[in-house]
């Protein structure tokens, strides 16, 4: 077990590292970035942007450094300059980047001229980057500075302001799904082939086939737009709190930013996430419960004369929940990604929406940081699931 755990932890670290490298490289290959608008400004004769200005801007975004160096500075905050051992500098003259690239128009495969970097006029040496502002490295909790969304402010500020919003959403969703989904699944399994079971399985099946973005829009239509247009009580559909005070029929005046306001804004996104989640989870509980109810020990318990409640709650449910525990653990990081879509529909200012904004707005440090956090969460959840398997079910051995 210990050997297994050590191997798995090492493996997980490798996974996080490789996915960080892969996504960093992918995002670095994407065109755009903070220099995207600069070329247009450069062609505009009113603003004279010299080559020196561009070099300075490139340096401030570290775009003049080579990819591996940039990645290493992003990941662990090194190198910050030449290696100093006993007062002597080493590797000071190693080329780590290019300050002024030579650009030329190159004919690409589709027959269009593109501006490409073909050479370098002025190199950046390792000793040149001494004293540059740098992050301490994402491994040590410093996510660097945002490029566009909150220009030159730490990414961690941006994320820290969004995390509570996502946690609110997901926390509430998980609790509600468990509270509603488990009893539904049990009831449906116990009353197999009843009318309730039939309706329930059909709805759950539809729920698991329902795309969350369409479901979200339907909810906005049915509970927000249509009743609002008809003058009926409605639920606000966008953001996590409103900017101005508003009045809802029957509910009355709602002060912007009050508890009531925030609660009302949470209703729709939480409902959408919860319903879709219940569809999956309760189907699983039902199947697992049906499986257990057929077991011999349940029949024995019944034969002993135990009451239906005791048989179901004590003998069947406990065993049916074993596989479910692992499912729940594993869906948690999935919920964060699932929240990407739901948060986008409801303009909910959480991490998922931030991720979409960052990717769309070329704010790659923010996107990278969020992706890194998500990878770590997923990897931890995978590990936790596999370990939980053995704890809840001693028949499974890990090797």
């Amino acid at each position, binding site marked *: 077990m210990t050997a297994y755990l050590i191997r798995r932890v090492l493996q*997980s670290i490798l*996974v996080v590292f*490789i*996915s960080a490298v892969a*996504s960093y490289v*992918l*995002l670095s*290959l*994407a*065109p*755009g970035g903070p220099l995207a608008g600069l070329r247009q400004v450069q062609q505009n004769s009113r603003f004279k942007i010299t080559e020196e200005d561009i070099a300075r801007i490139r340096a401030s975004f570290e775009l003049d450094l080579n990819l591996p160096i940039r990645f290493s500075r992003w990941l662990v905050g090194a190198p910050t300059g030449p290696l100093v051992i006993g007062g002597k500098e080493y590797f000071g003259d190693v080329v780590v980047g290019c300050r002024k690239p030579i650009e030329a128009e190159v004919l*690409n*495969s*589709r027959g269009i001229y593109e501006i490409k970097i073909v050479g370098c006029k002025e190199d950046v040496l390792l000793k040149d980057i001494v004293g540059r502002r740098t992050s301490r490295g994402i491994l040590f909790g410093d996510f660097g500075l945002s490029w566009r969304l909150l220009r030159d402010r730490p990414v961690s500020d941006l994320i820290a302001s969004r995390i509570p919003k996502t946690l609110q959403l997901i926390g509430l969703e998980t609790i509600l799904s468990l509270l509603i989904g488990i009893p539904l699944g049990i009831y449906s399994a116990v009353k197999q082939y009843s009318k309730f079971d039939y309706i329930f399985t059909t709805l759950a*099946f*539809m729920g*698991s*086939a*329902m*795309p*969350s*973005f*369409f479901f979200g*829009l*339907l909810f*906005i*239509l049915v509970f927000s*737009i*249509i009743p609002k*247009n008809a003058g009926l009580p409605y639920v606000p559909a966008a953001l996590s709190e409103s900017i101005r005070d508003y009045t809802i029929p029957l509910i009355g005046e709602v002060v912007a930013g009050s508890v009531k306001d925030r609660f009302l804004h949470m209703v729709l996104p939480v409902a959408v996430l919860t319903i879709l989640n219940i569809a999956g989870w309760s189907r699983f509980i039902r199947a697992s419960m049906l499986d257990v109810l057929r077991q011999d020990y349940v029949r024995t318990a019944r034969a002993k004369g135990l009451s239906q409640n005791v048989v179901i709650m004590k003998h069947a449910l406990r065993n049916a929940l074993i596989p479910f525990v692992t499912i729940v653990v594993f869906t948690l*990081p*999935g919920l*964060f*990604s*699932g929240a*990407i*879509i739901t948060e*986008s*529909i409801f303009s909910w200012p959480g991490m998922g929406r931030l*991720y*979409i904004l960052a*990717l*769309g707005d070329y704010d790659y440090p923010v*996107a990278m940081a*969020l*992706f890194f956090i*998500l*990878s770590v*969460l*997923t*990897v931890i959840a*995978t590990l936790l699931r596999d370990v939980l398997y053995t704890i809840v079910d001693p028949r499974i051995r890990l090797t």
Partner: protein
Amino acid sequence: MTVSAQIDSIKAEAITIEERSPFQVVMMRFIKHRLAMVSMAVMIVIFIITILAPYITSFQVDELNVDKYFVPFGTVDEATGRVHYLGTDNIGRDYFSRLIYAGRISLTVALLSVLISESVGIVVGAVSGFYGGWVDSVLMRFVEFMLTIPTLPLLLIISSMLLRNEDLIPIPESVLKTVGSIMLLGPKDARSAVLIVIVLAGFGWLSAAQLMRGTVLSLREQTFVEASRSLGATDIWIIFKHMIPNAMAPIIVDASLGLGGYVVAEAALAFLGFGIQDPIPTWGNMLSATQTYMFDKPWLPLVPGLPIFICSLAFNYIGDGLRDALDPRLKL
């Protein structure tokens, strides 16, 4: 004496059960699943409509009608007498035509993704399960590694990168032309659709490979494989003649569920703005565009949204029906 006489009189046909091929048995079991049959019928209708797209629709996909924005359902175009069955969108493009062309594109993307991901999955899974040893551990470690990366965020990164940098992956012109002719797109527009297929299939083959490997692992120990080997069959022969045909059942189910999944995934990418982009219609980007106008015109999201839901549900029911039909242990 009388007894034997009676036995003689019974015809052979009366006591033998009519012989049915495995395919017939599966078909009969599948037909019993009512919802799956209904779904099958619905999907056949949708496919026929999208195949006949150029004959059914009377407007071009990108045909702008100035001053005819958001006309109601069934408005007749006075100049030409053509009908906007579902009205027009915010820049006066015919909604009905766009919807059907979008269906053609979305369904083709889903079909191609399934085709590629299942083929890759089958080969990788079969090789991995059949040979075992280091081949197996390398391949399966890689699959496990890919599965621990959060999929949607990575899909978004990859597609945002590819869409802004379309030349990064070289795609042969012939592929673009073929796919373009299926989707009724020019080769240049087809490129983004092909890229989305690559992105989706790039993740989709993982589960198919795991599924295939599991089945092959149990098949490998069967006696008919041993028999085949003792008759001098090569590995390739055994894999393609015995392993793959025998492991098809779970793969077919997976493919059918996958079709629904890819329709939704493609729509989700487009909905979030990282899929196929606007002048090319897809259900996802049409749905995304309706968000801005749904406050005044609440029926708009239903038009592209319902087909996505219907396809997803139908493919799921078909998959469910196939799963039941292909499972010999299950009594229907």
